[in-house]
């Protein structure tokens, strides 16, 4: 087994951290407080090339492998970038742009991928509905073909980047008789008549990402906006899972590493009873808890990424374990990070409470922990 990264991968990770610490992190707290998306930072991410790392160069990417892409995502969290911005990036790059890149025609790729990779356009993906969450195949959105067009009706819920997206990949049923096999994917551009987004939903964490309902009310789109073939939608949405379980989760590993660094510094500097609190066993154990979580979570995420780089078919079991571990098992260590800082940890200025809040999305978004356990138990 080879756990080593190349010199170039490590150098790039360091450069991402340097970039993020200087250009993005100083803006995080203010945007988190105001629950505002940071357009300026997103533009900078695009300029630096992080929004399209794994796309080929002729589509505005850098031709990166999955591990490098994951390292860059992790580096953002490690630098102190909030989970909201990295979630927006994930939904944009991996759920929207990558689906178009993977399943789109040449024409669709050329039209959308470069603009998404540069950050000129923001993308989102609509799968979940108000009444179709874990049971995604029960989705009700309908797409009816009429001549050279599709007419879409239905609502999508909890859509990351929904209120700010210029382009959406939306799943709807072309054949409502069928469950999974009746789902197809479509590209809808902002401003299409009958297509609108609801107001930003106020969330517990990942607050700088904007989340809303998408509403399709007799929304007419050209037939060429179908992605792939009719009925392929469900499989497309499942293919995003590898990215979901690696590059989209990686920032949360990075954030835990950032928390660990901050906790270690604090434990050395904060004195009580005449010595740094890091000298007390109770504090040492909290630091160890966070470290154990970071090490284990990182290995699971890297392994998922490595499998994808090797071109192996996705191991759903490992991906589900990674997803569940990050979601459920981050609860105690991220709480430790808050408690270790005492009253300061509970205050916004110290970032700890934000990382705790951001992490609570883990057991819910992109397949709940209960669903992951269902997958894991089924595959045993």
């Amino acid at each position: 087994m080879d756990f080593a990264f190349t010199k170039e991968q490590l150098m790039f990770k360091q450069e991402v951290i340097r970039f993020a610490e200087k250009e993005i992190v100083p803006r995080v707290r203010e945007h988190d407080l105001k629950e505002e998306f940071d357009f300026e930072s997103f533009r900078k991410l695009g300029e630096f090339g992080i929004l399209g790392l794994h796309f080929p160069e002729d589509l505005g990417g850098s031709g990166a492998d999955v591990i490098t892409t994951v390292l860059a995502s992790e580096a953002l969290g490690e630098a102190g970038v909030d989970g909201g911005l990295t979630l927006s990036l994930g939904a944009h790059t991996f759920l929207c742009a990558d689906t178009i890149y993977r399943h789109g025609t040449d024409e669709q790729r050329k039209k959308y991928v470069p603009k998404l990779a540069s950050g000129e356009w923001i993308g989102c993906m609509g799968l979940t509905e108000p009444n179709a969450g874990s049971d995604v195949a029960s989705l009700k959105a309908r797409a009816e073909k009429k001549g050279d067009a599709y007419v879409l009706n239905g609502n999508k819920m909890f859509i990351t980047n929904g209120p700010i997206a210029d382009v959406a990949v939306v799943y709807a049923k072309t054949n409502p008789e069928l469950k999974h096999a009746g789902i197809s994917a479509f590209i809808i551009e902002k401003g299409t008549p009958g297509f609108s987004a609801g107001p930003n939903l106020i969330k517990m964490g990942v607050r700088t990402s904007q989340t809303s309902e998408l509403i399709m009310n007799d929304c007419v789109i050209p037939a060429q906006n179908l992605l792939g073939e009719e009925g392929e939608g469900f499989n497309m949405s499942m293919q995003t899972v590898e990215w979901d379980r690696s590059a989209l989760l990686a920032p949360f590993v990075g954030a835990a590493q950032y928390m660990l660094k901050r906790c270690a510094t604090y434990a050395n500097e904060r004195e009580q009873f005449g010595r740094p609190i890091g000298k007390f066993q109770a504090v040492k154990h909290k630091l160890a808890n966070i470290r154990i979580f970071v090490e284990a979570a990182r290995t699971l995420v890297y392994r998922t990424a490595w499998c994808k780089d090797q071109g192996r078919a996705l191991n759903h079991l490992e991906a589900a374990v990674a997803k569940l571990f990050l979601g459920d098992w981050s609860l105690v260590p991220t709480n430790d990070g808050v408690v270790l800082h005492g009253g300061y940890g509970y205050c916004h200025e110290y970032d700890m409470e934000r990382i705790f809040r951001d992490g609570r999305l883990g057991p819910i978004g992109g397949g709940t922990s209960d669903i992951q356990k269902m997958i894991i138990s089924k595959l045993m």
Partner: protein
Amino acid sequence: MKIIVLMKQVPDTETKIQVKPGETAISTDGVTFVINPYDEFAIEEALRIKEAKGGDVTLITLGWDKAAEALRTGLAMGADKAVHLNDPAFLTNDAHSIALALSKTLKKLQYDLILCGKQAIDYDNHQIGVRVAEMLGIPHVAVVTKLVLEDGKAVAHREIEGGTEVVETPLPAIITCQKGLNEPRYASLKGIMQAKKKPLEAKKVADVDASPGEVGQAGAKTVVLTLTMPPDRAAGKVVEGEPEDAARQVVKLLREEAKVI
């Protein structure tokens, strides 16, 4: 246009500097190293000139094995090739020895313009660019915040006390760079991958026609006797009371205790 950038690897600005008792150099334990921030301005300026007028950019550094990482980063930003004066016999913190080694290296190279930072942020000598210019017998302009190149000459804006001085110099010349000159770029993934294949040449003392006695610590004109951390600042004094009394008390303290008025 052939542009050469003299650069140095220094401890990260965020590093907590430590000096071990009895040592005459800072401790490198657990220290991360970066390109000297003022040299980054020099690299960025060189790249912008190259992008506007064509040519190539060569980086030169003098330092231990690890300094090659800083050169790679500079190559990843877009420089074309790098020269590493990598020989224990080169190593010193003495400005004269380093400038001599660099000027001997430069004598064997072609250049139209040499750029470097106005100072390195580790030992803050502020001397390399100026000394190298003297040794090569070419003009220099120091602490430059704006640089315009015209046919065979450069117009440089430099910071002076309370104002800006505009200096014209024929080329080749050495320009030492100050903050404000530009915003250095980050190395992209593409740049990092390309840097892997760019030439990075290591040179020993003999390769630059220097004798071991004249460079490095052997050729040093200065010797560091001791190196100590600045003393901890003593706690301040808070003067309380009505403004008039307090002011009187402050004046008294400044005169009798601090003895500054």
